[in-house]
């Protein structure tokens, strides 16, 4: 039985969006590797100009999705378009409009950093002064200026990843695909690259696959969560977090109000829409039946009890909470001997 994907209501930024507004549209994308179903009828809508996080555990189908959308692999069924071009193998027009960074970028070891960028630029039709200036700009932007004349065989994993970004954005693509772009970077490199990606917002549509949720929270405004080849949820990040917000309010009273706080707790417990109240040293957690209704009724009770608050907010889930809620940890029989998620076989 197929569980339908949750489509989170879009925020204002994408309200009223039409097919023409989408940088990427995929309908029913399916990919089989022999008996293994790697991608199962994936529908995807990526708005123009967004930084789109493709989330999922290992084996979820993120790389397969990117490989199909970049024309490196063929879908078994379904269709997709990127920047208005139908995806497929050997479609130069598609490749003119996109940039791509592999999760483990490999280059020609005999080539120098600058030469690789010049080759990438030439293949995109750049030449002369424009090519030289773009290459120089990219080397500076990715911090590879001093390594530009070194052979790529001597580049570290982090340097290769930064060079990969540089060759992918050199020609100002309309849609940029980054497959696990910060996986081999140190914390500083990771921060710099995420800043660079965030800086592309509005300049290009960025599709970023990762299983590092904090990276997505830092830079993405749209997300899709995949699990074992299926789309689990899709929509604006803020709306996704709001949709999974917990029915819990947190009240932090100002110090030295034990009696007043005791009175407030009693009032709350006597209220029919309050399910549970717990009191820690300096925090009151109120679990409610109807969070929207409670939002307007808690503060009058606080005022009536004469309690002064330092803060009052609704408990928000982290993306990790939402992710685990939607995807859940793999059960034992889904793990192979090495602890990886075992791909599902196609049901006859």
């Amino acid at each position, binding site marked *: 039985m197929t569980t339908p994907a949750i489509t989170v209501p879009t925020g204002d930024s994408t309200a009223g969006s039409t097919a023409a507004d989408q940088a990427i549209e995929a309908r029913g994308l399916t990919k089989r590797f022999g008996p293994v179903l790697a991608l199962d009828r994936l529908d995807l809508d990526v708005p123009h100009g967004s930084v789109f996080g493709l989330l999922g555990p290992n084996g979820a189908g993120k790389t397969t999705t990117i490989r199909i959308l970049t024309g490196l692999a063929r879908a078994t069924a379904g269709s997709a378009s990127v920047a208005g071009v139908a995806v497929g193998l050997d479609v130069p027009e598609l490749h003119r409009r996109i940039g791509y960074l592999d999760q483990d970028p490999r280059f*020609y070891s*005999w080539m120098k950093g600058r030469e690789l960028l010049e080759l990438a630029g*030439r*293949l995109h039709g750049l030449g002369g002064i424009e090519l030289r200036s773009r290459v120089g700009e990219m080397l500076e932007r990715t911090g590879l200026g001093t390594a530009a004349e070194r052979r790529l065989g001597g580049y570290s994993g982090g340097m290769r990843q930064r060079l990969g970004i540089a060759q992918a954005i050199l020609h100002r693509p309309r849609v940029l695909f980054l497959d696990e772009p910060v996986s081999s970077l140190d914390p500083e490199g990771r921060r710099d690259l995420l800043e660079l990606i965030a800086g592309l917002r509005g300049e290009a549509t960025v599709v970023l696959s990762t299983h590092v949720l904090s990276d997505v929270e830092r830079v993405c405004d749209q997300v899709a969560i995949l699990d074992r080849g299926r789309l689990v949820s899709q929509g604006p990040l803020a709306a996704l977090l709001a949709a999974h917000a917990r029915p819990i309010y947190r009240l932090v009273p100002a110090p030295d109000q034990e009696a007043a706080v005791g009175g407030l707790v009693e009032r709350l417990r006597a209220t029919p829409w309050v399910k549970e109240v717990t009191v820690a040293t300096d925090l009151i957690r109120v679990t409610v039946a109807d969070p929207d209704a409670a939002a307007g009724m808690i503060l009058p009770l606080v005022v009536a009890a004469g309690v002064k608050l330092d803060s009052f907010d609704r408990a928000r889930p982290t993306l990790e909470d939402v992710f685990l809620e939607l995807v859940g940890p793999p059960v034992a029989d889904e793990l192979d001997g090495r602890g990886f998620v075992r791909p599902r076989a196609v049901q006859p």
Partner: protein
Amino acid sequence: MNGFGALLRKELLEQWRTARLPLVATVFLLVGLSSPLLARFTPEILKAVGGNQFSIVLPTPTAADAYDQLAKNLGQFGALIAVLLAMGAVATEKERGTAALILVKPVSRAAFLVTKLVAIAVTLGIATAIAAAGAWFYTLVLFEPLPLAGFIAAMLLQWLALVAYAAITFLGSTLTRSALAAAGIGVAAFIVLGILSILPTIGSYLPTGLGTPARALALGQANGDAVGPALAVIALIAGLVVIAWLAFRHQEL
């Protein structure tokens, strides 16, 4: 073919930077220089080795023997080198992921393939020219000058045969993901073509069949029709490239 110029430039630079061109040129130069020397001094070497135990009567070596030695060495060492040059051309790039790096750019797959084979052909061409120059000069010194125009035409035919062996291996490299498997295909084809070359009609239109008209041209003899066999081998090379392209354009990377 999108990206042809930029890719050809890259492929030619790769031939140089990975030392393929200098190495192949050096080996071919040695082949070119040693062939007339071997032809000239083989009788004396045999005599020196055999001493008075054997009574070997060998004809006096001529410029034709020098050419035959060159053709034999190029046909064997040259073919082996052509296989070695082409075996990883596509398979290794697919395996390492560099093919995906290039083909996710606005490049046609036809250009990706053709520029690689052209670069291999250029390397073989330069190496054959160096071997030919060395052999012609030593033949002049040790024997007599071979007719220059005919000798050049003969070397062009030899080069064409080498490109054909490279193209067969190249097709293998495109069809598989293993350079070793591609080399196996190339070597097997070399053996099969050698066997087929004895067939009376077909034999002369195969890469192995180019030897007869090439020899006639090099020695200034009039009995060599080279145009038909050369066109047949060019058509074979073109056909192999087309088959490689038809297969490659449907391959996932």
